[in-house]
């Protein structure tokens, strides 16, 4: 069973602000799902390579010389942003990192 602490830590990593309601709702659900997937511990995977790409000969893919730029206009870049100013996208201040 996931602990409340763990769920809060995950939510923080995932930048999700959960309400008290949500925490209580998700805790049992997530615990049940994670318990189910632990089924994989039943089988041995010693000496088995992990698969990241299912299609084997998919490698060395590069940009095509012929592809044109798909540059957006400044207006298009800003189109869906909540707040913009002087061509910039604006968001609330963050501490310098």
């Amino acid at each position, binding site marked *: 069973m996931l602990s409340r602490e763990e769920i809060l830590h*995950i939510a923080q*990593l995932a930048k999700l602000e959960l309400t008290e309601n949500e925490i209580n709702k998700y805790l049992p659900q997530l615990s049940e*799902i*994670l318990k*189910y*997937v632990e089924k994989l511990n039943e089988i041995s995977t010693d000496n088995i390579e992990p698969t990241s790409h*299912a299609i084997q000969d*998919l490698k060395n893919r590069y940009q095509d010389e012929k592809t044109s730029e798909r540059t957006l206009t400044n207006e298009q870049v800003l189109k869906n942003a909540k707040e913009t100013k002087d061509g910039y*996208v604006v968001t609330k201040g963050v501490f310098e990192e």
Partner: protein
Amino acid sequence: MINEIRSKIKSKKASCVEVTKEYLERAEKLNPKLNAYISITKDIALKEAKRLDQEVDSSHDLDRLLQTKLLLGVPVGLKDIYSTEGIETTAASNILKGYIPQYSATVVRRLEDAGAIIIGKLNNDAFAHGASGENSDFGVTKNPFDEKRVAGGSSSGAGTSVAAEMSVIGMGTDTGGSVRNPASFTNTVGLKPTYGRVSRYGIIAMASSLDSIGHITTSVEDSAVVLKVTAGYDPYDATSSQSAVLDYEKSLTDSISGLKIGIPEEFMSSAIDAEIADAVNKSLKIYEKLGAEIVPIKLKHTEYALAVYYILMPSEVSSNLARFDGIRFGKNRSEFGDEAKRRIMIGTYTLSSGYYDAYYLKAQKVRTLIIEDYKKAFEKVDVIVGPVSSVLPPLIGENVNDPLKMYLMDILTVPANLAGLPALAIPAGFSKSGLPIGLQIIGKHFDEAKLFNVGYALEQELK
């Protein structure tokens, strides 16, 4: 249906506008009840239909025009995770309400270039998270065969729209079964192409290594035509295949005598609804009659496929949804629905420090074992057949409070996604209560032609 429309337009028996109007009227009439569409783009559709009619009228070589525009005058609905320039794209989630993409997906461009007429954005489980359509923030899509039941998911709108003749084609995506599932619940044909066969560029990503861009149609022939248009290398998608796009229609009517059809014992367990098992067995008998050889096979890691999927998929989801930070587009992350939040959190957990090896890495290794199962099986058989779903279309609300039970709906469909294999869902009959049952045909990588051939054979027999 596609070739019928084309021949009507060729012989001037109908215009693009007339065909479009017919489908638009039906869509507008049925949508309030069935909720297949989030938005119906009437004006844009009619404008495009008019433009195409002008092209047809001023054409000196209509044959040539029809050769280059395989979907001329054909109404299409697009799952609302397809980016459409200038047209609202919500992913069926509140977080993207009002989002207007400034570019279109490659597949959208290809459909437009082929003369297809986009009539609206189809409803789905928000961000493609679901197997019933109940995770949409815009209401659930109803099953036309029984409006108290789900249409399947996550491409729920696509299934209903095609089944109710609101469009000829319903474009969707299949990451764990999301085209095959609604197809089987709505008595339509659903194709999940090989991973990389169709470009993913511009389609809101769910799980990047599993997403397959598929479609729903009323017939196998139509499905083959659509693939001819959507398939092919796209330089904007580094995972898109450079292998040649075949003429999928050509081999439809080939004889299937001598074909080896594998039936995995793991697919026909006691957990399958008896009527579904029955329909599958009837189909196998028909295939035998047509000269195919039914070969029992083992896919011994089938029972682990779902666990693998529900580790790998949420991991990729958690990363793919990180760009939704409300800065350049969209609303605050708190606007994500429950299922999206659950998957983001599971994925964050399975990738996190201390857990990566036990979950993510482990799942990737078991994935290798599953892929090996199929590789070995395909040394003995040409295609693998089985049910799409272990249950008949559930009632709306039946599984909504039980996420894990909902996940179990994907049990038979996720293996094809994990292995990148193509799979076709075709109608295989009805239950006594009149609910559709679908059959699944899984093929080798890039062997969609064989799937269409095998599907067509059954389709013709069941007519």
